């Protein structure tokens, strides 16, 4: 395996929490420079997998390698995760978030953040707690994309987002993701993101059950949505 061409390499990853198996024997390799859809029903383990990759969840079995780095503290420097502002003070204003991010992450680009905030129509003076759910999602995206990382993890970025806002967010993702970086988007409404994807990874029954190039699926006359649903045949997934 050539490490230079891999953004992520997971081997034999298993994770339990409160006596409950959340993930078991996950193996997953993602190349650099791709947009990847992480698909799975609610509760399938998408968020947990992202938290493990990002180093926010620990005590797992197996190895997680991000851009050649395996230890959690170093791995964090390679990853920009949409949940990284989870602990922020809700009284801070949008503009202050940039100052905090700059202090926390040397790779944070304030100029990019200001452009993104403008493109996404975020008011710099607004307090985080006063933002609508949609605007909180937009702020998360702006913060995540303003870092220069090898791997970007966006956990359900379009949850509660209207069509017009989604378009602006998709453009932001295309414009601000560095060429060599890989971006993983989890979503349970595949049609939100399908035209952006190089490949999809399907999670079911606590593990990765499929990984396929998006255009390979379409070349067989199948939509990404139908492909995803074929793994959850007949089950309620929303």
């Amino acid at each position, binding site marked *: 395996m050539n490490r230079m061409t891999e953004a992520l390499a997971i081997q034999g990853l298993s994770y339990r929490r409160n006596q409950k198996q959340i993930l078991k024997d996950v193996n997953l390799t993602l190349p650099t420079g791709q947009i990847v859809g992480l698909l799975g029903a609610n509760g399938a383990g998408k968020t947990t997998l992202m938290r493990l990759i990002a180093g926010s969840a620990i005590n797992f079995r197996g190895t997680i390698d991000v851009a050649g780095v395996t230890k959690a503290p170093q791995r964090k420097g390679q990853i920009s995760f949409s949940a990284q502002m989870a602990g922020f003070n809700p009284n801070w204003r949008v503009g202050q978030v940039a100052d905090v991010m700059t202090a926390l992450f040397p790779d944070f680009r304030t100029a990019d953040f200001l452009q993104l905030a403008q493109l996404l129509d975020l008011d710099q003076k607004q307090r985080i707690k006063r933002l609508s759910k949609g605007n909180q999602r937009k702020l998360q995206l702006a913060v995540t994309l303003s870092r220069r990382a090898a791997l970007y993890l966006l956990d359900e970025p379009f949850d509660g987002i209207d069509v017009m806002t989604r378009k602006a967010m998709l453009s932001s993702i*295309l414009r601000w993701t560095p060429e060599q970086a890989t971006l993983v988007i989890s979503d349970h409404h595949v049609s939100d993101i399908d035209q952006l994807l*190089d490949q999809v990874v399907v999670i079911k029954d606590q593990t990765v059950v499929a990984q396929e190039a998006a255009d390979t699926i*379409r070349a067989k006359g199948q939509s990404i949505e139908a492909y995803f649903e074929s793994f959850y045949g007949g089950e309620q997934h929303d």
Partner: protein
Amino acid sequence: MEFDDKVPIYFQIEQYIDREIIVGNLAPGAQVPAVRQLALTLTVNVNTIQRALAELIREGILVSERGKGNFVTTDTQVLAQMKKRVIQGELAGTYDHLASLGMAPAEMVAALEEYIKERKGGESHD
């Protein structure tokens, strides 16, 4: 641009660029927008654009000039062939449908001529 979600997107982008050339939005010898610009315009990722452009270069419809970008070929024969292929692609489905109705080729031609005449007549009224 709206994509058919059951057809590879790189292939739909090839068709899009073919059409841009046929209708004259991209003239022979004209420079094709940069990969990243096309990705933003069409809201698809850069790799998909690159794959579509690579196919068009392989077919000789686009010519890549190192360090400068991609250009529409000035070879009119290649462009004429491409246009013929696109038209044939449009007609193929119609032909198959009419054939499945048991129509003979001469009947198809007559029906098409009549349709065009009526359609033209209809359009001149508005």
